[in-house]
Structures are given as C-alpha cells and as structure tokens.
C-alpha cells in the first residue's frame, strides 16, 4: 500500500481511496490494492483492461508491450493523439496515473517470447493476455502453463467486426484458464472500440472476480 505517498494535484492517497471505496463493492478495495496483475499487450484490450483495473484500485500493474502508438490504434486504444510515436507502455502509464497516481505501475517495452515468460510473469498473481496476434496468444498459454500452471490466465480471442455483443462470453475450459471473446471473429474484419471494450470488460471483470476469490465464470 502507498498511504505515505505525497499528495498529487492536491489529493492525498486517503482522499482518492475514500472516494473509490464509496462506490467499489464493499470489502473489495483492500484486496484489490494488494493484487498484482501483469498485462501482456497494451493495445485495444490491454489499454482498456488497465484503465478498468486502475479505476477500481488494483494496486500493482505490470504493462508489457514492444510497440509505439500509431494513428491506426486510435479507433479503439486508449491513447491520445498527443501520444503518437510514444511507446505504448509509457503512454498508458501516463494516462493511468491521471486516474490513480497511487498504484504501482511497472512497464516493460519488449516482445513477450517463450524465453522471457518466466521472468516477466514472476510477480503476477494473475496473468492477463491482451495481444493482437493469435500466435502470441497461443505461445503465452503454452508457456504460462509450463512455467506458472497455478496462476490464473485470463485471455481474449474474437472481438472483431460488428457482431452481437451477446456472442462475447467468458469461458473456463480448464483449471486456471479463462477465455473471453466470441472465439471466431478475426481482426481482419476490423476492430472497433465498442466491441473490443466488451471483451476487455469481460477480461477485467474476470480478473476482478479472481482477485476477490471468485473462480467461476
């Protein structure tokens, strides 16, 4: 916890958390504040998931993404035009700190590969997959199962196009694996904020449930 941090924009830790506790589910805030979530990918899924988790006070985030902000991201990813060409993890951290300056945010500007999964996800209580590339998604499931079989892994697959919102679900097909999305729509159909945010919401809510001890979907 970061109660001793100096004030930011005239607001203390206590100010911000008192406000947050008024609307967070009763009894949840302390558990959320002590949770460590590592988010792999800071694009359409990752930026929206990170904002949701920051707003409810998840206390320790690690953001991983090798890429920089470009104009084609702006229809769905939570960056500003002023952040063009900035590394996504740097830009996202800046934005998150405006929502809650009192959480711990670490950034890693690298590509996730099988060889660095063990190091990058060591601190995570929960692993969040938020990649764009399907092979990267498969790689992370493979490697996370190898190195961290006991850590919950929350993933997204299928949030493209303008299909019904109601085809996006959260499934729990094997222990510690949570799969969100419609499972079929591909990025080439186009990816737009509304539907990507639904999937990001599924991931963020499952992560929230897991932090608060709920393991069912």
């Amino acid at each position, binding site marked *: 916890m970061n109660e001793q941090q100096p004030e930011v924009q005239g607001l203390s830790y206590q100010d911000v958390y008192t406000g947050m506790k008024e609307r967070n589910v009763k009894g949840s805030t302390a558990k959320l504040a002590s949770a460590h979530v590592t988010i792999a*990918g800071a*694009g*359409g*899924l*990752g930026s929206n998931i990170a904002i949701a988790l920051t707003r409810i006070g998840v206390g320790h985030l690690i953001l991983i993404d090798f890429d920089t902000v470009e104009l084609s991201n702006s229809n769905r990813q939570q960056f500003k035009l002023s952040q063009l060409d900035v590394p996504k993890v740097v830009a996202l951290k800046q934005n998150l700190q405006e929502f809650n300056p009192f959480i711990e945010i670490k950034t890693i500007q690298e590509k996730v590969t*099988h060889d660095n999964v063990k190091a990058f996800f060591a601190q995570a209580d929960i692993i969040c997959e*938020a*990649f*764009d*590339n*399907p*092979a990267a*998604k*498969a*790689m992370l*499931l*493979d490697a996370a*199962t*190898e190195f961290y079989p006991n850590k919950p892994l929350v*993933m*997204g*697959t*299928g*949030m*493209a196009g303008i299909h019904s919102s109601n085809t996006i679900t959260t499934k729990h*097909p*094997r222990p510690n694996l949570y*799969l969100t*999305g419609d*499972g*079929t*729509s*591909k*990025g*080439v159909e186009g*990816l737009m904020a509304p539907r*990507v945010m639904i999937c990001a919401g599924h991931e963020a809510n499952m992560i929230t449930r897991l932090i608060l001890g709920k393991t069912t979907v």
Partner: protein
Amino acid sequence: MVTVNGHETTGVVGQSITEFLTKRDAPLANIVVERNGEIVHRADFDHTLVEKNDKLELISFVGGG
C-alpha cells in the same frame, strides 16, 4: 476412439501432433493442444503421438486485441 473437441475421430492414431494438425489444415501457430487434460507443449508437437482413446481439445486463437 480418439475424440477431438468432443467429436469421435478416426484415422489419427499414431500421428504426431504436428501431423495431426497439418492434416486438418489447422493454423499450427495459433493452436494450443490439450491431450487428456494436459497441455502438449509446442516443443513436444513433433514427438508426441496420438494414442487410442486420447481426448484432444484444440484451443484455437483468432487475431485481434
């Protein structure tokens, strides 16, 4: 009988996971294979053979995020 995603499938016993996926035209890189409840790691795809009564679940990922 081998089941694949719940469907009984014939003619696959003895194939490696790589062969099995390739013959189904499955996008190899985007798939994670669960065999009898355990994930078959990618490094083991070539030398893991499908056996009689195996239950295979193919977890396929699509792009977008």
